[in-house]
């Protein structure tokens, strides 16, 4: 079965306060970079998934993102199925 590589981007919904992002923004000012107007912290999750085809992989990644990787009450998510289908590398001894 082919192995697909994907990156799931999870970000806080714009209406949700991000205290960690705000704290980081104030540290940027202490570093001397005063121009940071907005800084929001999310997650990037790298996934390798075996599936029959790209459509199945996409569907499973969407389910994974919506039900586990993100909490849609406070977070948005975006799945990026990376270019090129990676073949499983059976190189381990």
């Amino acid at each position: 079965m082919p192995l697909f590589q994907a990156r799931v981007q999870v970000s806080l919904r714009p209406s949700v306060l991000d205290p960690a992002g705000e704290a980081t923004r104030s540290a940027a000012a202490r570093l001397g970079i005063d121009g940071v107007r907005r800084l929001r912290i999310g997650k990037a999750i790298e996934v390798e998934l075996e599936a029959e085809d790209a459509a199945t992989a996409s569907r499973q990644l969407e389910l994974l993102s919506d039900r586990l990787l993100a909490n849609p009450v406070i977070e948005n998510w975006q799945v990026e199925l990376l270019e090129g289908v990676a073949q499983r590398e059976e190189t381990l001894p």
Partner: protein
Amino acid sequence: MTVGVVVFPGSNCDRDVRWALEGCLGGSIRFLWHEEHDLGGLDGVVIPGGFSYGDYLRCGAIARFSPVLDAVRDFAAAGGAVLGICNGFQILTEMGLLPGALTRNARLHFLCEATELTVEPGRCRWLQGYSTGECITLPIAHGEGRFQCDPAQLEELQSEGQVVLRYNDNPNGSVGDVAGLCNREGNVLGLMPHPERACDPRTGGIDGRRLLASLLA
């Protein structure tokens, strides 16, 4: 009467709940390891505080998929009394048994202090020992207790009488001062404060007693 107390890898208030229910209130409990399914013979279930599965990904996100919570979901659907304290409240929202979500405190501090709360018991089974508008003091201990939901949802929760515990001096930035929520049926309660730490007079107060005693009556 026997109450089940769920134990995840990373739970750390399970024994406090036991002391409150057995040592202070004379009830009996059974610990439920997270891989168990059998809730037979239980009159209620408590999901205690702590850091289930290390709180990886999000607080409560991994716990939600544990076998014991499948059983708790059925138990709640059949009208069983379910209480989620702190991490337990986070888990109940992740499971969808209660609406909204709990996220980082507005000022980033881990808060460990006594808080004043106003109780609006409504039809919440766990709070029938309190009067409407009663002011009580319970400890909080959390870094991610800021309740979040959209304004329409909050309005609905308020009009349905589901906001059963409110902070008098909102310490974490929760919308609507929400400290505790009940489901519509009244059998599932989630709250960030720790009633089990307010049952033994030696720890400073006993305002949590009536909440936990509601199961043992």
